[in-house]
């Protein structure tokens, strides 16, 4: 399946292992990625709170570029992009006059956004486009015995109406379904649907780190070997900032946090190093037996 691929900014900046692991995993999932390398930052909700029209225009430009490709739909690998773009798209699709105004901002480049783009995070792709049965069949290294805590973050689960979460599309259960399909054990803990704290890290660092620290601690108490996140910003607060979060909450943490494509890659037989797992601040030693390059606890 060919998709217009929006990697976002952070996956090519401070979490390069995310973009890298997606590139490795894509062919194994029969995904052909047409990278939207001309598109700008989605604004992460911050530009929208500064100037709504600006955020809507930048994302309309991205959508228009996606519509110029021959991809079947647009795919992203960042929850924050998913949520911020869905919010802009909701306004663009709801009001024709507004859409015309925004498209006028793109006229210089000859770009136009046509209402009705489909934009799906990799997580949604796995369940709705690729299918769990197909995914299960592709697993060569089942994550047997690996206890994985899903951490959704906010932008991919709320608001439910905007994100199209309903009985037919239980997108707030997809992480659990994918972990199980890969052979892992799902760990339920208090932080599954909570906020990592990243959006307020510059305004209230103490609260931000407390959020990260509390969720990590809850997952450890629930006996998780690792967390998996569909959002690089969550990864920044949960992995990169984990040493600071540990000091803030006054307990040892040391819980590895994996990007979704990394977890997929492990189960699909890729080597941890190729998935950039050596780049994490918290070494994923509880996930990987580095000597044998297999998932901890799993027979090779």
């Amino acid at each position, binding site marked *: 399946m060919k998709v217009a691929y929006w990697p976002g900014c952070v996956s090519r900046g401070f979490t390069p292992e995310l973009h890298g692991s997606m590139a490795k995993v894509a062919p194994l999932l029969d995904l052909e990625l047409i990278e939207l390398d001309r598109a700008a930052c989605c604004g992460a909700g911050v530009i929208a709170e500064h100037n709504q029209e600006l955020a809507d225009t930048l994302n309309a430009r991205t959508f228009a570029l996606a519509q110029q490709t021959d991809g079947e739909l647009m795919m992203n690998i960042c929850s924050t992009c998913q949520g911020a773009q869905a919010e802009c798209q909701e306004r663009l699709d709801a*009001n024709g006059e507004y859409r015309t105004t925004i498209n006028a901002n793109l006229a210089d480049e000859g770009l136009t956004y046509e209402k009705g783009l489909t934009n799906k995070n990799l997580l949604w792709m796995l369940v709705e486009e690729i299918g769990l049965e197909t995914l299960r069949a592709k697993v060569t290294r089942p994550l047997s015995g690996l206890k994985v805590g899903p951490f959704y973050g906010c932008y991919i689960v709320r608001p439910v109406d905007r994100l199209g979460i309903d009985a037919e599309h239980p997108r707030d259960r997809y992480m659990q379904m994918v972990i199980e399909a890969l052979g892992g054990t799902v760990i339920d803990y208090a932080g599954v649907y909570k906020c990592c704290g990243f959006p307020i890290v510059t305004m209230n660092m103490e609260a931000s780190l407390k959020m990260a620290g509390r969720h990590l601690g809850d997952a450890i108490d629930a006996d998780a070997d690792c967390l998996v996140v569909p959002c690089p910003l969550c990864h920044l607060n949960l992995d990169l900032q984990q040493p600071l979060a540990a000091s803030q909450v006054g307990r040892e943490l040391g819980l590895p946090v994996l990007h979704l494509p990394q977890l997929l890659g492990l189960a699909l037989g890729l080597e941890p190093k190729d998935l950039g797992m050596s780049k994490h601040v918290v070494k994923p030693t509880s996930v990987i037996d580095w000597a044998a390059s297999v998932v901890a606890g799993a027979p090779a």
Partner: protein
Amino acid sequence: MPEYLLKIRRYDPTSGHAAYWDEHAVELSGSNSVLDAILKVRDEVDGSVGIRCSCQQAICGSCGVRMNGKPGLACNTHLQEAADRRHDGDGDARPVIEVEPMGNMPVIRDLIVDMDAVHWKKIQRVTPYLINQEPIPEREYIVPHDAMVDVTQTMACIQCGACVSDCLSMEIDPGFIGPAALSKAYRFVGDPRDADHFERLKDLSEDPHGLYDCTHCFNCIDACPKGVAPMSQIMRLRRKAGTDEEITDRNNGNRHEEAFSTLVQDYGLLNEAELLPRSWGGNSWFGKFHPDAGRVLLKSLPAIIPAVLRGKVSPKIAMFGHKLAPDDLQAVKKIFTKVEGRDQRIELNLYVSGNDSDDDPTPVAVGAAAGEDGAPADKSPTFPGPGEASESASSESESA
């Protein structure tokens, strides 16, 4: 009639005993409300169950509780709807509904929380009344009709506290003013008759637990039974405070937004290495040399050092960031110049404008779900949106 297993969280802080689950089988139709079930138990089985309720029509806002993890009004939540939220049956063949008191507020007894201790204190904090413009007219203030449309969404609030219950910022920082009170603040900041727009915005921006303490978790939007979308109101307050009034606050809130926007304007993509130092030290490349930025960077060394050592962040990205190709960057800069150069900021609120695609048989793609922030109150496809309408009306009324 189906049978539901109703599990009520019981707790009496004066008893010295811990909270416990009180289970009752309730035979009611799935379209009965959760409140119907609670009252049936109270009336027929145990009169000591504590629940606060009155109108039973989703107007008085008394019966806020958490039902299978989600806050809302017990009187307008169907039993089956609440039961469907559970992903496991708790080992019981019957549909299970766990009813708990709302969060972030102390429990008085069972399902009754102390709204005075948290919710009403926070409402009082935002000066929840109109401060008249002088001179006070002999009769009523006359304002253009459109000017008040903008605040109708916040006026829909019935003070039930559901948004407060699940605010994830307040959970960590109980001092946070929170979604209900900040929505109430917008109700007056957006009201053209109020005299103290600037002072209100300045006050909320400077409060360390104020405008910039919201973490964008969207919980309040999903919690609200009235479509108030408190988080959207907080973002509107931020636009008014930061972009329109240019209030630079001590919490780095506006500086963070400014730095973010400037970086995207200059690079096309977010340059993460610059964002933090600029938010603290000022919005330029030299921001990182400001003592405030230095202090934060120093504090962050336990994260920065391993990140650099493990090759997570390449020195090139850290120093220079990543950039779009020149033609695309030029196009992005032009967008910034055009949009930010407008005399009046454009804002669209779908709560007011409605969704013109509701009349359109063309299916909207997945991920582009219709209807924002709750049910549209009014269906008018007119654009510009209410944000602009009220802003222009606001200046009209000020000159009146």
